[in-house]
């Protein structure tokens, strides 16, 4: 009986000094809409980086806090494409809060269109086309390697061609280009061939060019690597 009275007394004391039932974590029950989540609260270093650049600069965004959304929650809706995430009014099955996007998602076919995030416009340059439809771009091997276009590469660190993008457009890459030590060898032999080409000619021997007088020059080219 004394024990029962003691327990009741303790319970009464507990009610007095602990009037509130608590959750496990403080603030756990104050909810924030997805559109108001503050990305930089967790991603402070990325926030610092974005303030420092001359492109994608935080201060140039009209979206207010967390312009991370401009890239990672792209609002640039195009029919049949799955990144669009309008918050609550639609469903995207492919991601929740931050898509790992390819740079060329915006800087490809969507060039020149509105991001639909704060009225910003994507620069008018279709970089996908500038590489893939090009015969003159010198960085095509880097682009396709980053894209793993051959399908046989064993290391692929970022999505799409992003490795190539950050290699030049950020300071995140150490690039080493091993220039070959080699020379162009040209050997020109007078009268080394018979059927020399000159303007207007339709047939010629390989590497055989006439000087327009009486010599046909056999001109061979090769690579000399000492």
């Amino acid at each position: 009986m004394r024990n029962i009275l003691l327990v009741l007394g303790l319970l009464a004391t507990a009610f007095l000094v602990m009037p509130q039932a608590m959750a496990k974590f403080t603030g756990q029950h104050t909810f924030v809409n997805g559109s108001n989540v503050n990305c930089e609260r967790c991603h402070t270093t990325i926030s610092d980086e974005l303030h420092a650049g001359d492109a994608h600069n935080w201060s140039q965004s009209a979206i207010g806090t967390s312009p991370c959304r401009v890239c990672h929650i792209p609002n640039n809706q195009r029919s049949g494409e799955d990144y669009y995430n309008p918050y609550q009014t639609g469903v995207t099955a492919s991601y929740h809060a931050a898509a790992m996007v390819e740079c060329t998602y915006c800087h490809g076919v969507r060039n020149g269109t509105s991001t639909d995030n704060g009225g910003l416009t994507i620069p008018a340059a279709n970089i996908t086309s500038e590489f893939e439809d090009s015969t003159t771009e010198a960085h095509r091997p880097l682009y396709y390697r980053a894209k793993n276009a051959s399908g046989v590469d064993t290391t692929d660190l970022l999505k799409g061609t992003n490795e190539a993008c950050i290699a030049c457009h950020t300071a995140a890459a150490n690039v080493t280009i091993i220039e070959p030590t080699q020379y162009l060898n040209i050997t020109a032999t007078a009268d080394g061939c018979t059927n020399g080409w000159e303007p207007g000619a339709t047939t010629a021997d390989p590497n055989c060019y006439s000087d327009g007088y009486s010599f046909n020059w056999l001109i061979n080219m090769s690579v000399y690597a000492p």
Partner: protein
Amino acid sequence: MRMAILTLGLLAVVSLAMPRAVAKFTGQHTFVNGSAVNCEQCHPDIATELKLGEAHNWSLSSGSACRVCHIVRISGSELYNAYGGNTSGYHAAALVECTYCHGNYNGSATGYSTPPVPAANVTAEFEDSSTEAHRPLYFRARNASGADTTDYLLGANDACIACHTHAANVSVQVGAFVGVVANFSDCPPGTPGCYAGWNISYWK
């Protein structure tokens, strides 16, 4: 029980020491505009070469001089890239032919703070010429016959660098001699090879 407390303690320390979620690579989110990309950061050897030459010398250009040739800004040219505009031909560095500038665009402004392209149409100097001795080399580099089996550089660039850089070992092999026979034969004037009674013939 002690292990559980120790684990919880470690987790608490980790939470304090690693409060920030990071990207995969440091600096990955500091972006540089295309017009400010530093080409020589990746291409230091080429930068060194460009500082040594008499032509296309780095010191004559501001910023990354690579652009003068590889991001052409000659007004009206099809490789023109104004940064921010679309070019279907290339993104950051066009593989250009030397005669792109030194041909029909001779004398034009480069679009950069450099001297204009010299006023010499090198394309015409070869292709419209009947006296230029290096025409075989030029046309061979250009693969003008379409029958050549090796072609290392665009257009006539192989020929350009053969003389205007130190990148080529050139060997010219002339094995023939000119044979001259002058035969005083009292040949009639006006006949082939006949000069003042001398019948002069050549052979190789």
